């Protein structure tokens, strides 16, 4: 299986705090890969490094075989590597449909394309994806007025609208009620299988990640602690120790 993201020996520190130390991992094309680890273990820092929020101190990050560690956030996003945020970020003053339309890919959009109005297909696609995440009825409401869980679903739908090849999800189920979580797992899996989007997911909810991912990486204290299938990770004594604090 080929890999779409290759992270090798990436280190990142903030002042004296080493957030990532010599981290290496790879995300397989078309798969769902998980990233777990206790709070403060450097998961989000690694995500931020991959999508270009801050320069890395050393190491290399490749997307589809090309080095991306020196590119800006926008450039990486336009290559089809997209992320969602742990603290949901949507355009609060606009309604759901507008949020979706804005998320159309700007990859190949020239300034002349940008000066066109949205097409019927754009609207249909927006409606279709809103239906997919179950927000169709509320699509004309100001999205800032939606509940946190609904905003998370909207953010997910927006990410799909952007037609990414690979999607980095930062705790997609945090703050969502248990009933909705099942629906979300199902939709994430379908986004992966039906739309062919590679998923790389940070998740604290073990039930969720063990259900979805084919391969899981575990970070602790900024270093890669373990990697393997859900079964291997669940039975790895080092992972159990890291979570229970036996370090």
């Amino acid at each position, binding site marked *: 299986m080929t890999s779409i993201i290759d992270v090798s020996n990436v280190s990142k520190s903030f002042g004296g705090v080493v957030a990532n130390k010599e981290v290496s991992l790879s995300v397989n094309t078309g798969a769902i890969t998980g990233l777990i680890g206790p709070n403060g273990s450097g998961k989000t820092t690694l995500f931020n490094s991959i999508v270009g929020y801050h320069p890395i101190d050393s190491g290399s990050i490749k997307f589809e075989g090309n080095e991306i560690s020196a590119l800006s956030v926008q450039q990486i996003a336009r290559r089809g590597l997209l*992320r969602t*945020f742990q603290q949901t970020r949507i355009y609060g*003053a*606009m*309604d759901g449909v507008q949020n979706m339309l804005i998320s159309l*890919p700007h990859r190949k959009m020239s*300034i002349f394309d940008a000066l066109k109005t949205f097409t019927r297909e754009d609207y249909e696609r927006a409606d279709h994806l809103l239906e997919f995440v179950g927000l169709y009825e509320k699509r004309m409401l100001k999205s800032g007025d939606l509940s946190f869980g609904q905003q998370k679903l909207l953010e997910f739908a927006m990410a799909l609208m952007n037609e990414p090849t690979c999607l980095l999800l930062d705790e997609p189920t945090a703050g969502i009620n248990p009933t909705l979580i099942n629906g979300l797992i199902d939709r994430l899996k379908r986004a992966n299988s039906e739309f062919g989007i590679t998923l790389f997911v940070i998740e604290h909810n073990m039930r969720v990640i063990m259900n979805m991912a084919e391969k899981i990486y575990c970070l602790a204290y900024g270093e890669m602690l373990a990697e393997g299938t859900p079964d291997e990770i669940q039975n790895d004594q080092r992972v159990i120790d890291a979570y229970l604090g036996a370090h």
Partner: protein
Amino acid sequence: MSKKKITLYASILAFSIIAPFAFPDFGTQLATLWLMIIVAITWDMTGGQMGYNSLGNIFFYGTGMYVAALITIGLTYDIGDYTSAAGGGIYEFTDLEYFGGMALGILGAGVFCSLSAIVIGSLTFGLRGPYFAIGTLGVAIAAGELVANWDWVGGGQGIALPVYPGDLDTGKTFFYFLFAAVGIASFLFARWLYGTRFGAAINAIRDDEEKADAMGIHTLRYKLYTWSMAAFFVGMAGGISAFQLIHFEPLESAYQTINLGIFMVVCVLLGGKGTLWGPVVGAILFHLFKEITWNYLLGWQWVALGALIVVTVVYFQDGVMGWLEHKRPEWFGRKVEKKVVSVSQ
């Protein structure tokens, strides 16, 4: 477009055409109203739609004045000679030189301001929120001071342009229609722009620029283009003002940061930020308020204006249109919709 809307637009257009003839005594006032509408609509393009509150848009107004004047003069005479005579009356312009120069001057003012917005924007769009506001204000103030000390363009005395050739009342009507044309053009332009993907992208920048970045939107590019479009119209308005005022000087009439530079912001706040009609409604209300207080509360007019700003900012932040949207959300299409299509699961 619905029938109602067409009727509305048609009646506004008709009124705009009849107004200077119906109220001949208010010709200059009505022209100034259009100027207010232009600067308010264009201010809202960055301030309301893109979330970048510029206090420096007056730079384009002042620069537009100078560029238009210098082009018109430069086409016929040597600028240095002309300005050192301070409009002493030895310089005659034929009708062709006057109107031809004016047309090229106003257009040139728009283009020059458009380009300068790209340059200034490249330097200032790294700033956010209040820092951007103060940064752009600094640009406008500095420009005024620089021009005031530049003798070639008349220094602190400014420039005196030739008087409108012909009947002065016809001149007033002529400038009214110039302003009205630019005003209508900027309104229609904004109306079209906000409906495009471009409009959606600048709204995204306003609501969450970091998110827009993360979605791959060319944020800096859109910011520069938007400001550049706004600057084009403000520059042209400045160019028209130069001819309407006949004589202008750098600090009080061209780069008038504390007058028009603030008025445009107040207009938009009063009418409703980030709405198409807000700036227009706001400009009309503000201009009425200003003219009434300047006439009947003379001596206290600035106090009244200050009070208006404070009340607007503290109690009426959403402006007229925002208040309407809050009271009548269904007029703006905000409602829960029943499912009408189903997508196969």
